[in-house]
């Protein structure tokens, strides 16, 4: 994981007073980023340390302990098979974060490549953009559902399906940036000096794509976690044997009127995680593009 957490940054910052001062200033100026980082870091720690966080086997069935309400023994209660919901929710953090992170990285990388290609190769632009238009006319959740029904429900397939559904947005963003940069005098000057496409991409296009791409990637991460939960919730995602927040909620659906806690805890964790990523995205957008910050 490349995303620095609050835990990573704090001790490192204390080592040198200058970075500490910078960090303090940054956090004070962008409190949402600090909250987002802290929440996300907490979820990351929970996901990594899941086995030692007083959890039991999340798949252990117990016929005598079915649908218990939260107690000292089962902090979040048990589900209809007697499984400990606290353990399931803690382990579920792994799948959500994994899917969110992988989809954000993959969709950004592939979208960047296709967007650059489309922006630079004139003859391909029309074809690529028609395909992108076509893909964007299918609502992302439906596209992911369609792809999942074709393949088996595994974590890999969920990542692939959501990535495919998210790529078109990145392609549009990158292509838009390329087309607007090509008109810039300094890029025209570079072309006039005989710079080839690889040099222009490396020196002029990529540095200008980095900021909007980072922001876009955080939003994709948030969206991917929600789509993953929706897929699991409707039974088209990760198989029920793996505890994910969507799966726990799907299993609690039948009982939600009498045992709302089964749905409540995974819902809370999912919402907090997505909120953390969105706060981070908003904060990054504000600090990376001050012009946009004034507007939105």
């Amino acid at each position, binding site marked *: 994981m490349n995303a620095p957490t609050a835990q990573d940054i704090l001790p490192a910052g204390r080592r040198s007073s200058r970075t500490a001062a910078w960090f303090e200033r940054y956090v004070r100026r962008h409190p*949402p980023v600090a909250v987002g980082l802290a929440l996300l870091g907490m979820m990351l720690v929970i996901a990594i340390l899941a086995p030692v966080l007083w959890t039991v086997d999340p798949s252990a069935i117990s016929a005598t302990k079915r649908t218990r309400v939260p107690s000292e023994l089962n902090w979040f209660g048990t589900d209809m098979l007697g499984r400990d919901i606290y353990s399931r929710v803690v382990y579920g953090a792994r799948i959500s974060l994994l899917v969110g992170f992988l989809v954000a990285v993959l969709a950004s990388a592939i979208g960047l490549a296709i967007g650059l290609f489309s922006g630079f190769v004139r003859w391909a632009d029309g074809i690529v953009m*028609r*395909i992108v*238009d*076509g*893909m964007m*006319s*299918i*609502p*992302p*959740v*439906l596209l992911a*559902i*369609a792809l*999942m*029904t*074709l393949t088996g429900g595994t974590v890999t397939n969920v990542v692939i399906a959501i990535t495919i559904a998210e790529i078109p947005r990145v392609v549009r963003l990158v292509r838009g940036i390329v087309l607007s940069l090509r008109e810039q005098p300094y890029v025209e000057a570079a072309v006039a000096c005989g710079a080839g496409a690889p040099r222009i991409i490396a020196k002029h296009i990529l540095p200008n794509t980095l900021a909007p791409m980072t922001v876009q990637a955080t939003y994709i991460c*948030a969206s991917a976690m*929600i*789509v993953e*939960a*929706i897929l699991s*919730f*409707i*039974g*088209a995602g990760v198989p029920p044997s793996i505890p994910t927040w969507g799966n726990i*909620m799907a299993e609690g*659906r039948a009982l*939600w*009127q009498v045992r*709302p806690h089964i*749905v*409540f805890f995974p*819902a809370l964790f*999912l*919402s907090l995680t*997505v*909120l953390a990523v*969105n*706060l981070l995205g*908003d904060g990054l957008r504000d600090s990376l593009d001050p012009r946009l910050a*004034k*507007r*939105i």
Partner: protein
Amino acid sequence: MKQLYAFIIRRVVSTIPVMAFVALFVFSLLYVAPGDPASIIAGDHATPADIERIRQSLGLDRPYLVRFGEWVMRVLQGDLGNSIFSSVPVAQQIAQRIEPTLSLMIMTLVIAVVVAVPIGVVSAWLAGTWVDRLFVGFAVLGFSIPVFVVGYLLAYVFALQLQWLPVQGYTPLSNGFLPWLRNLILPSLSLGAVYIALIARITRATMLEVLGQDYIRTAEAKGVSRRSILFVHALKNASIPVITVVGVGVALLIGGAVVTESVFAIPGLGRLTLDAVLRRDYPVIQGVILVFSFAYVIVNLIVDIIYTIVDPRIRY
């Protein structure tokens, strides 16, 4: 005027390649779907020769593009094939389920616009104050809480605890307006949360931009009232991006409808999709995706045409 018609015709024509792509995708979905339809129809005791005969009679042995062409011709005549499970025509199933979904979406749209636009306007007017921060905070929350979580939360508070509204179900409009409305309020609010956040955010952003323009200062200088400035001078000009977002956001509504309908047990297209996914009933999945995607394309076509007519500045 002639130019406007030319634009409309060009815009309509431009949807053809998009729709063609959607059709090709949806067709390929069934083409590559696991399971051989011929052997399913033939049953367990069929010999390979039986299966081959059925395959030929269904035309399944013909090339991909030929089958695609035939399928498009059938779809254009309203034939979406039959469900693998119930053998009921898909088009008929979709027609039966359209009313609840359409009601849910229209209701959500109305609630979202009525709630979100004033929030965005007030937020822009009071930009930087605690009221604005509160609204912006709510918008971030709206983006972050998944639709089924909002659904369960609202149902728990307003239906189970307070018992103001029904927990779930759907009453057709033909049974009276009020029962119809009562059943739709909670699902529409849950489905609308993201949509409200989206529209409020764009309204705020474009209002802020418009409020910085010279003609707003002129209006202030000549003593136009605040309310008049906000709602007549500014909102009118800020409405173009808002209308666009309303169109684009329909994708969110379609994805959310699948989930909302299962939380509130509404027998609509979303519920049909869910059941079809669980049974891997490919012709139904195909039909629903086709209908939803075409609806989405057409909504955005209409939105584009509307704002070209509304805003004389847009060149066509």
